[in-house]
Structure formats: structure tokens, C-alpha cells
């Protein structure tokens, strides 16, 4: 009963988020009117749209920008910065106090090759997300590649532990998710979130992740039994973290304000993924 109520509350929250996203993305200036005003009155509001234009002035083939100093960087409005910073700090502690020691011990026990196999298997399980989102972006060839990858890796790759689709057939991953699909459709980032445990995201990508969870086997497990789902998710995190220990530490060392640095990196990374999506589409 308690679980159901929590789920209902969560869904309501996401419906609210979705409403905000849609108004932000499709009606442009809607961000500055109506209910979004108090949330989005930050000075960087609408930067997303301006930078879309700035982006197009860049050489489409090379991304070589010109030398004047008038470049406009893609930025995201962050009206929730104080709260986000608290969660950023929380995640930071979570990494150093829990995730890292656990992943270290786990990494010491399980050989690296096997951990890579487990990462592959989790990746293979998420095939429906990539397949559906390729279709939603009308990339039927890529969807076909993902389908072939799933068929080959699930059988010849023994339940996805191996990746013969790539090693033998040269089929590369065509990673797409709902956040990228929204971006492909022209939806802007909205505002920035740093979620506890889940980490950096934008409004668009948060809604996307929520939608994707319905296509994810981990999500299905989560709906049947929250604890099993969380355990599975945690398992995946520990396994994948064990393969990149040291990366977060390097990131911290290289940055002057890790919170800002991560936010910028997240936005740049997602933007490049959405852009990739668009460019690839030209070929098919």
C-alpha cells in the first residue's frame, strides 16, 4: 500500500515535470511566462535556444569555430543550484564512503574481464530502450543494427556477456535514449538537476529516463519489487564503477568548481549525443 502511494506521488511529480518540459520545449517563450517564472527567472533562461542558433553558425562539418571571442557556449539555467549543490555534495560523499570502497572490494574479488562481461550483459538487457528510441528518431537502419546486436549477443554472446556482434561482425552500439529522442525532436534541455544517487540530468533527460524505465528490464523488476530493482541497479552501478575507479577523483582534481564543471560537462556531453543523432540521420 505504502509503495503504491509513493509510486502515485512520484508519477504525479513526473507528470508535472513533463508538463513543464513540454511548455519549455515546444512553445519557446513559455519558459518566461506562467508557472515557470519563479523557477526559471535565472539570468540564463532561454540560453538553450540562443545557443542552438549559435551552433548552426559553426561549421557543420567540422565543428571548427571561428577565432573571435564571441562564441556562445551552451549553458543551462540552474535555478535550483542551492539544492542541486546539496545533492552534488551528497553524491560525492556517497561515492567516497560507499560506492568506491564497495566497488574496490568487488573489483579485487571479480576479475576485470568478467566485470566487463557483466557490464556487457547489463548493456544488452537495455536493448529495448535503444531500439525503440532509434525507431522514434526514424533511424530504422540503426534500429536494425541494435536488433541484430541483441540477437547475436544474446545467443552467440551467451546472454549478452560477450560482444561478438562488435568483435566479429563489426556492429557498433547505436546508443539512443528518450532524452536524446526529445532533443532530436527539438526539445530544449529545460533546467538542470543534480538528483541524489542518480546524478546530473536536465529536465528533458529526467523525463526521458523516467520514460525509458518502462522499456528497461531493471525498471520492470523495480515495478514488481522495489527492493529487487534497487539491488539490481546498485549491482550495475558497483560493477561499472569498478571499471572506472579513479576517473571521478581525476575529475575533482582538474576542476576549480566541481559542481559547475560537472554541470557543464553533462550538458556538453548530452548535446554532442543529440547532435550525433542528427548527423547520423543524414546518412540514412
Amino acid at each position, binding site marked *: 500500500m505504502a509503495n503504491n502511494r509513493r509510486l502515485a506521488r512520484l508519477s504525479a511529480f513526473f507528470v508535472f515535470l513533463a508538463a513543464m518540459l513540454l511548455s519549455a520545449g515546444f512553445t519557446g517563450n513559455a519558459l518566461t511566462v506562467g508557472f515557470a517564472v519563479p523557477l526559471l527567472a535565472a539570468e540564463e533562461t532561454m540560453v538553450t535556444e540562443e545557443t542552438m542558433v549559435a551552433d548552426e553558425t559553426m561549421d557543420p*562539418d*567540422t565543428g571548427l569555430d571561428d577565432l573571435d571571442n564571441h562564441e556562445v*557556449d551552451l549553458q543551462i539555467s540552474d535555478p535550483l543550484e542551492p539544492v542541486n549543490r546539496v545533492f552534488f555534495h551528497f553524491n560525492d560523499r556517497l561515492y567516497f564512503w560507499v560506492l568506491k570502497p564497495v566497488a574496490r572490494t568487488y573489483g579485487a574479488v571479480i576479475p576485470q574481464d568478467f566485470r566487463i562481461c557483466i557490464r556487457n550483459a547489463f548493456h544488452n538487457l537495455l536493448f529495448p530502450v535503444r531500439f525503440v528510441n532509434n525507431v522514434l528518431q526514424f533511424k530504422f537502419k540503426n534500429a536494425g543494427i541494435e536488433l541484430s546486436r541483441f540477437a547475436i549477443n544474446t545467443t552467440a554472446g551467451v546472454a549478452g556477456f560477450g560482444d561478438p556482434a562488435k568483435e566479429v561482425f563489426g556492429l557498433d552500439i547505436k546508443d539512443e535514449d528518450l532524452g536524446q529522442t526529445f532533443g532530436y525532436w527539438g526539445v530544449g534541455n529545460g533546467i538542470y538537476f543534480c538528483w541524489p544517487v542518480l546524478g546530473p540530468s536536465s529536465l528533458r533527460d529526467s523525463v526521458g529516463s523516467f520514460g525509458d524505465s518502462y522499456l528497461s528490464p531493471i525498471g520492470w523488476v523495480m515495478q514488481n519489487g522495489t527492493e529487487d530493482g534497487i539491488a539490481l541497479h546498485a549491482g550495475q552501478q558497483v560493477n561499472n564503477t569498478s571499471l572506472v575507479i579513479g576517473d571521478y577523483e581525476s575529475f575533482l582534481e582538474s*576542476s576549480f568548481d566541481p559542481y559547475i564543471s560537472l554541470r557543464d*560537462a553533462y550538458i556538453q556531453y548530452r548535446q554532442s549525443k543529440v547532435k550525433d543523432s542528427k548527423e547520423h540521420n543524414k546518412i540514412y
Partner: protein
Amino acid sequence: MRKIKKNRPRFILLLLVLAFILAIPAGCLAAGEPIDQLRDAVDRIIAILRRDDPAELWVNKKEEIVAIVKSRFDADELAQRVLAQHWRSRSETEKKEFISLFSQVLETTYINKLKSYSDEEVLFTKQIVKGDRGMVYSQIVRNSQEIPIHYRLKNNKGDWRIYDIIIEGVSLVQNYRTQFDQILKQEEYAGLVRRMEEKIRENKEKDLEE
């Protein structure tokens, strides 16, 4: 006999041309091709990292690597792009100071990371050149995952120098630019200088600890 004599001037000319070509240092031959220059630099760094002499100190290796890296980076361009709109309002001395500080920040932050190099493969896939600008695409394979790394380069009299590195779509210059913009707005230029000096000191201390 006569025939050979006739051909001699041509033969000498050929020798001269050969001598001329051989006299040109290898670096110049690669001129014009950013991907070759970059590959050459990376190969040399990897060769240094792979040198397996237990008696050799990291400091020595580091010195050699820093020299190679410095010859491939355009520190001025990099600094200018990181400060962006704040560049113009700085005096000449401040500009010089910033270039030097920022180079030191990068050097002390990143060079030591190379210590953990463990035979990762670096592949250079393609280049795009447009006037004096170039983009070189590369990939580094780690734990059977490919990480795309792109370099932005500027032609400096036949010498292609890096002014930005884009790792998985994230531009290093933009990332610092965003952070510095915030610091400059809140703490002015003096605050930024202080922070950079602090960072360099921290990095050096860490270096000594290891």
C-alpha cells in the same frame, strides 16, 4: 664515356636534390598534416611511458613528456579562449601572467595522470583541415570501451598546435571557461589568480607525496 659525361650534371643535380631533401628535418616533412604531427607526438610520449627501466625516475620521464607536450600546445590561444570575453579587459602583464598560470595548472593537473598509463591503444581515425584550423579525431580504448578524443589545432607556420581537447563531446576549454566565468563574476580577476596559484600548489604537493 661521352654519354656518362653528358649525364653528369643531371646526376649531380639529383644528388643535390637528394641531399637537400635529407637535410630537411623529419618534422618538416610531416608539415601540413596535423594528424601526422599529433600521432608522432603521441607515439613519442607512449614510447617514453613504455620504457621499462626500474632505475629511471618518473621525474625524468616527465621532463621529456612535458617538452613534447609543450611543443604541441598553443598556450596563448588556449588561455585566450578560456578567458573569452574577459580576455580583452586584462592588461598585457595580466595576459602573460594568466597564460603562464593556466599552462602550469594544466601541466600539474594532467601530466601525472599519464603515470597510470597501461598500454591503452590510441587510434587516430581522421582529420579535417580548413584553412589554418584543423580537427583530428582519435580514440583511446580502455577496458574494451572506446573513448573518442578530438583535438582542435591551429596552424602555426607549418606547426599544428592544439588549442582544445574534446573528450566524449566535452570541450576542455569550454569547461574551464564556464568555471572561470563564474569565478570572475564572483571574485574578480585577483580571485581567479589566487585560485589558480592554489591549484598549482596543491597539485605540486600531491606530486611530492606520491
